[in-house]
């Protein structure tokens, strides 16, 4: 795929990625955010952060399965949208839910496992967002890849956060967990199955794609 096309795809991602936020604003203006609007916004932004995380994580499995490499260039855009919704999520929690009552927030975080894991996941996304620019990619070199592998931990923590939050019916977090398990299994399969052909090709193509991104 040519650069021109990639730019077009990225623009489409921008438009689509703004839709969940636009929906929240629309519902908010029309007083349609349910009886518990804060919970509604927390749920919606949290769900979209998780969705963008999983979409970001599916770019490499797509490469492994199809040999296609162009979509690797979308990882940063998608990952930053995950960060965007994670920021909205935590802002809603700190501002709308807890009205900046820091002592209550600290208590809530340290006392409740589901908040701890969610908060940890968010804190871990910050260094990834900061180092997502070309300058940092060049500067950190090999360490950049190591650092950004934290994304797997973030994904696991985010799903735990969702799982532990649910009172009894874990159907929804289960679906997200299943997607993550599938995505990670594909990676592990290619890593350990000795599928050298695809492996060599993919390590080459990842270098190419990073260069392209730069």
């Amino acid at each position, binding site marked *: 795929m040519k650069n021109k096309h990639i730019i077009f795809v990225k623009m489409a991602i921008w438009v689509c990625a703004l839709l969940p936020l636009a929906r929240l604003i629309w*519902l*908010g203006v029309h007083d*349609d*955010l*349910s*009886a*518990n*609007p*804060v*919970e509604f*916004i927390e749920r919606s932004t949290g769900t979209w952060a998780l969705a963008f995380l999983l979409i970001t994580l599916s770019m490499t499995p797509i490469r492994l399965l199809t040999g296609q490499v162009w979509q690797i260039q979308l990882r940063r855009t998608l990952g930053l949208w995950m960060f965007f919704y994670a920021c909205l999520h935590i802002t809603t929690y700190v501002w*709308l*839910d*807890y*009205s900046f*009552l820091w002592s*209550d927030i600290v*208590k*809530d975080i340290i*006392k*409740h*496992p*589901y908040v701890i894991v969610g908060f940890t996941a968010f804190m871990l996304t910050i260094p990834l967002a900061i180092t997502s620019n070309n300058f940092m990619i060049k500067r950190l070199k090999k360490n950049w890849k190591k650092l950004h592998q934290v994304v797997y931990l973030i994904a696991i923590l985010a799903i735990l956060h969702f799982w*532990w*939050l649910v*009172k*009894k*019916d874990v159907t929804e977090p289960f679906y997200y967990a299943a997607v993550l398990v599938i995505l990670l299994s594909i990676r592990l399969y290619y890593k350990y199955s000795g599928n050298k052909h695809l492996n060599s090709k993919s390590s080459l193509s990842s270098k190419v794609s990073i260069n392209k991104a730069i």
Partner: protein
Amino acid sequence: MIILNQSKRNPSNIQPSEITPREVFEHRRSFLKAAGFALAAGSALLLSGKTLAAEKVAFKAGTGQKINGYSKTAYGAGEQLTPYKDITTYNNYYEFGTGKSDPAIEAVLFKPRPWTISIEGHVKKAKSISIEDLLKLAPLEERIYRMRCVEGWSMVIPWVGLPLASLVKWADPTGNAKYIEFISANDSLTMPGVRSPILDWPYTEGLRMDEAINPLTLLAVGLYGEYLPNQNGAPVRLVTPWKYGFKGAKAIVKIRFVEKMPLTTWVKAGPNEYGFYANVNPNVDHPRWSQSSEKPIGRGLFADRIKTKMFNGYSEQVGQMYAGLDLNKNF
């Protein structure tokens, strides 16, 4: 041909094995009816074309059936009521689904009349009472109570009902009755939630006898001056305002007077998270939710949390019942 046809239709020719049993037949008929309703409700939802369709389908105050003849009381004077729309579209009623807006949609098929409650266990004589007779057992009164959910949100609801004490008196329990168990409806036909084993159905709750006859304890039959909407527990539900909301068993079909503390549904589901007493207590945290403060429902996006009070602010009326009880252990 005609003769042949007639002979075929002759009832005497029908094999007994071909006859649909009455129960199956009736079940099928009510199922078809229910399916029809569901289809109608479903298309209404599609037509309204909104994600939060529950709020569009849900009835506004004044559309339900008015309760004639109930008296106002001083309970909750000066409290800011939660809007009717919020009370009737934001429900934890897992028999109709685990989403907060599910019950308002799914409960349209539920039929709260005719209704009888059977009274069993340690009573002089097991008997049952129809909803009509229950309504005449004591004068109906309006009571504005705060409701604190274990999930950290709260409402202020103008219930209409009668003290549970009047039903206990009518039931005439024996000296062995130390606790009361409340069992909710469990009809898989009209309650889609009970088809999945999310909780151990039927929903079961319980109270100690002194809690049951405490003047605060209400059998609610209405809210905002109208008979209860299905999603709020029609036709009759329990209201114990000093306890977390899940103690309020809905659509009660059976009341059992028992000697031992009943094993209630949420205690069974998570004994480390939910206790039998479930008294509102800002000092005892739930593993998931902070219990020291709560989010009031219906006050907009920027409403501040409010501090949760001991026994939800009803210490004066109920505190003495728990004197000497370790509330950290008996949460």
